[in-house]
């Protein structure tokens, strides 16, 4: 209908900024006249700036949401749901880029293309969230995954990083294939790829007896492919290895951004396109299994980054319970969970690299952090308690609402399992806090002070976590509006 370029001006801006940054990085860092300057931080700050300007453009384009529902002719549909999801995504990306600067300085990292490969998947995720067509969804998922394969392997001197990159390639290329196979099955059975058309075709899917198995297989494959990408449990095979081996800001980016965008996309697909509880059993099973695995497997870990990976798998399981019940409260709890999960994860991944003196890898190195660095010990334990779901923090808020929504839609098995696994997982987080506060280490380790960007980020996210419980209403209103508009 409308080919309105104004509507996509954030994406156009960010893609142009990416190109200009790429050219700038390549031209100037190889010019002999300027003495081959290392342009990583330069390009990094410009990348951060471009992400923030995209955020501003998106916010400035908000009045456009009210005039038309369908822009760009079969490509995407924008409404409040996508608007706030995109804002959350851009904020998390800005946070992740600001975590990178210290990493560059410490590791003597000099590839300026690393920064270019962060706004690029951001743009594809900005396109994935409002995507309203199967082909658009697949293209955006593929673009995002490719960028992640590259930045996960970008620390060339480390074998861990290469292993993480190749494992992520296999773990990511295979579900892209499954996703595309599902899309082609649906197209072959119905002849339509646009979600509106699919919604009309699939309206009477469960009520009438004529079930075409092609459609069923197609939706199943799309769901399985998307679940692979969020590393939900039966499909989470190498996710801890990937999270551990990648460089830390990449891990942070990897655990926040795809989850936001693919969850938003999946809720779009399930609500609009397949219009019914066809796959509810699968999502229930995945969420139960994710919660159980996240709680149990984190207990045996001795390194620092792997249990963060397991806890993010577990938390995604909790979020998936909100999604599995198809009600509005379910979607609202999913969105609350994602907002809080994003801030907790940024928090956790901002503290972990700051604790590195000589690459802190083992948990035993965290000992007596309370005496050397009491403030970062407290922030870390606030984050861990929020993951565990302890009441005066935001994690409890999100879990409470998730189980509430699950009970409200009749999933009477899911909520007790969730509560029990939450209690089991709590052991692990409290053990970290105990290690920090009450253990006496073998050798005392002094940590270098945290730099300014990360400390600002930590301040913002931990204040959000702690203040979300006494005053949760802005978040609740926001997500309620988002959930309602996604059903329109």
């Amino acid at each position, binding site marked *: 209908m409308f080919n309105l370029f104004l509507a*996509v001006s954030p994406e156009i801006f960010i*893609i142009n900024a990416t190109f200009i940054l*790429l050219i700038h990085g390549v031209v100037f*860092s*190889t010019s002999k006249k300027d*003495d*081959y*300057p*290392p342009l990583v931080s330069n390009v990094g700050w410009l990348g951060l700036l471009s992400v923030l300007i995209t955020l501003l453009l998106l916010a400035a384009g908000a009045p456009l949401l009210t005039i038309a529902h369908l822009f*760009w*002719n*079969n*490509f995407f549909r924008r409404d409040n749901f996508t608007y706030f999801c995109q804002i959350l995504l851009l904020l998390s990306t800005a946070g992740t880029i600001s975590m990178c600067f210290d990493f560059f*300085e410490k590791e*003597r990292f*000099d*590839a300026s*293309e*690393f920064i*270019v*490969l962060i706004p*690029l998947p951001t743009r*594809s995720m900005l*396109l994935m969230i409002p995507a309203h067509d199967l*082909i*658009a969804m697949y*293209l*955006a998922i*593929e*673009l995002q995954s*490719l*960028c992640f*394969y*590259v930045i996960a*392997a*970008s620390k*060339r001197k480390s074998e861990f990083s290469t292993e993480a*990159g190749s494992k992520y390639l296999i773990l990511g290329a295979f579900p892209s294939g499954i996703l595309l196979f599902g899309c082609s*099955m649906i197209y072959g059975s119905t002849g339509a790829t646009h979600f509106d058309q699919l919604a009309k075709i699939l309206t009477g899917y469960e009520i009438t007896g004529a079930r075409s*198995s*092609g459609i069923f*297989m197609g939706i199943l494959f799309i769901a399985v492919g998307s679940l692979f990408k969020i590393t939900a449990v039966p499909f989470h095979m190498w996710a801890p290895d990937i999270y551990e081996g990648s460089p830390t800001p990449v891990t942070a980016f990897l655990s926040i951004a795809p989850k936001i965008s693919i969850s938003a996309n999946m809720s779009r697909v399930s609500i609009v396109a397949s219009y019914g509880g066809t796959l509810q059993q699968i999502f229930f099973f995945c969420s139960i299994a994710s919660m159980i695995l996240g709680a149990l497997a984190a207990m045996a870990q001795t390194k620092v980054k792997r249990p963060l990976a397991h806890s993010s798998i577990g938390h995604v399981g909790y979020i998936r319970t909100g999604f599995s019940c198809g009600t509005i409260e379910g979607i609202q709890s999913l969105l609350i969970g994602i907002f809080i999960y994003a801030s907790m994860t940024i928090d956790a991944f901002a503290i972990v690299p700051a604790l590195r*003196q*000589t690459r802190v890898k083992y948990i035993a190195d965290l000992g007596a952090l309370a*005496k*050397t660095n009491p403030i970062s010990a407290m922030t870390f334990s606030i984050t861990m308690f929020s993951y565990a779901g302890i009441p005066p923090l935001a994690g409890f808020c999100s879990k409470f609402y998730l189980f509430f929504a699950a009970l409200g839609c009749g999933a009477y098995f899911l909520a007790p399992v969730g509560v029990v696994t939450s209690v089991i997982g709590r052991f692990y987080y409290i053990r970290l806090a105990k290690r920090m506060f009450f253990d006496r280490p073998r*050798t*005392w*380790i*002094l940590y*270098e*002070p945290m730099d300014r960007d990360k400390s600002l980020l930590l301040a913002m996210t931990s204040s959000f976590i702690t203040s979300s419980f006494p005053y949760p209403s802005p978040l609740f209103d926001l997500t309620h509006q988002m959930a309602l508009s996604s059903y329109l």
Partner: protein
Amino acid sequence: MRLLAPAFKFHFKGGRRTMILSVLSSPALVSGLMVVRAKNPVHSVLFPILVFCDTSGLLILLGLDFSAMISPVVHIGAIAVSFLFVVMMFNIQIAEIHEEVLRYLPVSGIIGLIFWWEMFFILDNETIPLLPTHRNTTSLRYTVYAGKVRSWTNLETLGNLLYTYYSVWFLVSSLILLVAMIGAIVLTMHKTTEVKRQDVFRRNALDSRRNIMRSMTIPNGSRRCFSSGAGGPPENYKETFKRWILCSEYRDFPGLKSNIDKLIAFLSPSEILFMVHTFPRDFPLLEILEPRDIREIIAHSHKQWKPPKKGG
């Protein structure tokens, strides 16, 4: 589709189309099998080329002329060539003849049966017969007129939509290719290639202030008179250093004034300067640490540090 499964009696009721179909698809199937079973890895990369050629022939049979022309370009020219590059780079040896294939039979058999079952699950409609039948479908003469209608070519139909309504998808696919290019360069370009490189030493020298301060506190590279090794340090250098540091800009660092005596006793001035710069706020903690621990901390943090030959 007017395709018949080939009958056992070799009666070509369908005419040329079935002959072309069977001639093209059987080598495709056999080559697909040979990809997995070939002993030489180069052979197992060359067999997909045969598959791709057959597939493009099948596409012509279906009437998709544009796809049939593009698909060999993409599949053979890009994909098979990439595989060949990989095989060439990795120097893979010829596989063993007596390979224990039957070892994989239980699990792979189950997975194969699951795929096979899924196939039947999908193809449950009656238009695709499983067994050969002798249905005569060539008597539909009126379809001759369909061929006389002048319609757009494949190329025109694709271009009409791809560059106007769906142009964003086209641009996003080009971005995917751009990412592949960037990725290949980021991951594999070493500094020793002649084409474009950065000078590592200059780059290191231009690094942060910390690096500069580190280089100033190395005993042999420093310009400060306390730690230059020529002729040995003067006798009361510690007193001079202590006086200097208490009037310098470091005097307000927490814990420095109270701990400076203890530190001067066993650390050299360059080491103290290093500690001041790396851990500016942690001086009160040094009260509880042993001298040995402090030296370990310095040794860990300063990778270029060598302790001075004379003691302290």
